[in-house]
């Protein structure tokens, strides 16, 4: 028997197996260590910004203004300006909250889980995705605060000894949300910032003006790139990745408990925790690609964020999308299998007889039908159709939450409590406003911070040139 030690890499490739057929590179040709740093830092310290960036920032600013106006009006007039009513007491606030939290998950998955799984292709997109996590969590956090009606007493949700003898209801998943999301936000922020430190130091060394040198110098915390620094950096990264990994699952599981711990048909179903986590990753990857595809084009980053990255992300998206669709099918089947008239009515109302059936079928088109195009490689590696598919998924994942929240609440157990729900202009205003906030934050991030982790791309280059040994 031939032992593998005798099978050299040359012999393996010489066999020319199709499985080892040409693949897109993880790093474009012609790069060396210097050119990698140049390409990435030039966006921050030198390069004039393309028109696309200005358009994106301008549109974002307009929407951000809308957030200011809508919020001011809300504070002046109260939550009655929203479409919420009984029986729909949550409405857009919870829909948008869940949507944004979900979007943040891709960042943590890419940066933590893929790091632990040793997936090198994460290197070019992790920084971008982590930034999205932070901004998405910030957007999500606005909704519960605004929905309180009196956001200045939001701290009541925290358990602290007080003269009123007031404690949160620890059995409520809403309280768990507070702990889960604040932990998630803090750890994600820390992880993101630690990753940025070496790159801030690179920007400090390359900055052209004094103010930028001082700012990047302070942000880099005195990083000198010594081996001791790198050792501690790597240790901290692995530890934080280990901490973040359970958070990927726990946060959206707890968000799903907000619904599933109730008795309401359409909300109360046991598959919700993993199904919500899969949905979060699905939405998150779609949003990462939505932002990364145009930015990569504008800044001519195709050699850093290559078609291989895009292809891999599309494959992850297809996989988790199918898991989400399994959730839809499972809900459908078990509602029928249950034999419960309430469950069966809920599903019949959702898919056929109810006023929101169009939303359900639109979500099936967006989240199931259209993403099946991702089975085709040319769709996965071509930015334009891929961008289109991602937009469908972005809309579809919002509709999913809309369907869960609205169809279930409008038709609960008692026909006397049935109602209808539609978001008002102020609901839409705040939602659009958070989109603006997110876009502006992303623009500022691209403008002032290295959007790709320089040192990690250098590691990729090192592995490529040394054959992974």
């Amino acid at each position, binding site marked *: *028997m*031939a*032992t*593998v030690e005798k*099978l050299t*890499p040359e012999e*393996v*490739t010489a*066999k*020319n*197996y*199709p*499985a*080892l*057929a*040409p*693949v*897109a*590179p993880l790093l*474009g*040709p012609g790069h060396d260590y210097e050119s990698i740093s140049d390409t990435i830092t030039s966006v921050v310290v030198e390069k004039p910004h393309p028109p696309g960036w200005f358009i994106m920032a301008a549109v974002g600013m307009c929407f951000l203004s809308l957030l200011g106006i809508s919020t001011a009006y809300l504070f002046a007039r109260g939550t009655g300006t929203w479409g919420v009513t009984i029986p729909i007491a949550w409405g857009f606030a919870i829909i948008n909250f869940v949507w944004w939290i979900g979007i943040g998950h891709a960042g943590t998955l890419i940066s933590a889980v893929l790091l632990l799984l040793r997936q090198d292709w994460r290197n070019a997109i992790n920084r971008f995705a982590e930034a999205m996590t932070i901004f998405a969590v910030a957007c999500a956090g606005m909704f519960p605060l605004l929905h309180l009606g009196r956001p200045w007493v939001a701290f009541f949700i925290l358990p602290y000894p007080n003269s009123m003898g007031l404690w949160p209801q620890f*059995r409520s998943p809403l309280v768990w949300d507070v702990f889960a999301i604040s932990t998630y936000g803090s750890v994600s922020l820390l992880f993101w910032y630690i990753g940025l430190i070496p790159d801030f130091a690179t920007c400090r060394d390359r900055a052209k003006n004094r103010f930028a040198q001082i700012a990047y110098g302070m942000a880099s915390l005195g990083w000198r790139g010594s081996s001791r620094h790198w050792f501690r950096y790597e240790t901290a990264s692995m530890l934080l990745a280990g901490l973040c990994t359970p958070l990927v*699952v726990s946060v959206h*599981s707890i968000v799903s*408990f907000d619904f*599933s*711990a*109730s*008795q309401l048909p359409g909300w*109360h*179903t*046991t*598959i*919700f*925790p*993993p199904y919500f986590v899969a949905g979060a990753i699905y939405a998150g990857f779609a949003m990462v690609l939505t932002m990364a595809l145009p930015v990569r084009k504008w800044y001519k980053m195709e050699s850093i964020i290559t078609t291989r990255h895009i292809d891999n992300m599309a494959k992850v998206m297809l996989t988790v999308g*199918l898991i989400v669709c*399994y*959730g839809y099918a*499972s*809900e459908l*089947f*078990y509602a*029928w*299998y*249950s*034999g*419960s*008239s309430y469950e*069966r009515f809920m599903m019949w109302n959702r898919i056929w007889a109810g006023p929101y059936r169009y939303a359900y079928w639109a979500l099936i088109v967006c989240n199931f039908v259209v993403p099946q195009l991702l089975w085709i490689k040319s769709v996965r590696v071509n930015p334009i159709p891929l961008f289109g598919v991602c937009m469908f998924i972005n809309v579809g994942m919002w509709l999913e939450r809309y369907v869960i929240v609205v169809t279930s609440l409008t038709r609960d157990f008692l026909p006397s409590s049935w109602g209808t729900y539609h978001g008002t202009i102020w609901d839409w205003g705040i939602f659009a406003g958070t989109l603006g906030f997110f876009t502006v934050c992303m623009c500022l991030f691209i403008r002032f911070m290295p959007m790709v982790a320089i040192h990690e791309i250098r590691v990729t280059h090192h592995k490529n040139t040394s*054959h*992974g*040994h």
Partner: protein
Amino acid sequence: MSTNTVTLPFGLSRLRGIAIMAGPVFLLVAIGLSFALSGDPDTGRSVGIDTFFQAYLFGYLLWFGIAMGSLALILIHHLTGGAWSFVTQRILEASTRTLPLLFVGFIPILVGPLMWAINGSAVGNLYQPWLNMEDAEIIVQNKEAYLNAGFWIARVFFYFAVWIGIMSLFNHWSKKLDETGDGNIAVKFKRFAPLCLIAYCLTMTFASTDWALSLEPAYFSTMYAPLFWISQALTTLAFTTIILSKLAQTKPLAEYVTVDHYHHLGNLIMGFTVLWAYMSFSQYLITWSANLPEEIIYYTARRSPSLAVLAVCLMAFHFLVPLLLLLWKRGKRSPNYLTKVCYWILFWRLADVFWFVSPAFHHEAPGVYLKDLLVYGSAWIGIGGIWIWAFLGQLQKRSVIAVNDPRLYEAVTHKKPPEVLEHA
């Protein structure tokens, strides 16, 4: 280049001999005990042969779970292209080739609904609560379109047709790759794996509903089937690791298996252990918190002191202890240590399956009964004896490593071969 058959290490070949003798003997013991320790019908406890059929289902689900878990892991392995798992590929494939035997082994479970459909006999019938719809609650009667003997039996044939079809296809290609070294086969693996994995998930969803969930027909849970997949994968990984450690003691596998492989397997087992706990706990929390009559019956039937103790033990010994044991990196890299953890996990897999199967038959007087433990244990060894014999027989038939697979270099050296780049 490759040897066509494998000489099993002495321990395994001796095990095979013992297994085929122990199998039928323990099945007879299970039947005998079932009659000898007959329960009292007034307490709702099983009478006569009924306990044997219940125990048979318990034992069957465990061994069947290894074969199906192997099928799923092979598909995931080809889909993701994770090269390191190649060292377990032939063990998994041998396990899947027992599916035709398992189909035959399903006959005792099939016979109840079949006899009911033919002559209305209720003897040894595991699914009486829904077969006899006249006495069933309204919520169960509403399920008659799905839960009826004819459709149920037809589905059994359909599931096995799909599983044996997928198994035959992948085993055939694997053999062909060994014989011809045709690299195109590796592409076929990758191309068909996702579709077959979807088929596995869907069929296993319905099969778990038919065979296990419907034992308590009023209850339903959307988490049940995913929990079934995860449990199967965990059992399979623990079992496969044990077999791998035995095979790797001698050549040819000894040349290929490194501590890194054990490390990866240990990590995967830890991951699936956590996933099992996550899903089990989520299902419990959601059901407990809503406290709906049609759902909470599942947990109230498991609330007797002995079953509650078992549930706590499952949390401690099926989740917490393996998790802590597998966090230790050096341990995971030691075949001896990891194998012991796998034996531990396999034992608690038995306890978990007992926890979800047995109480379904004792709703009026829930509890852990000595009679059940004896009959269930005997049936498990009985079915396992025959299954192990068949499995080791299949394992002997083919080369223990896929020497012609293009991914082998990476599997063994843990180094990527240089990529042929599109734009290089």
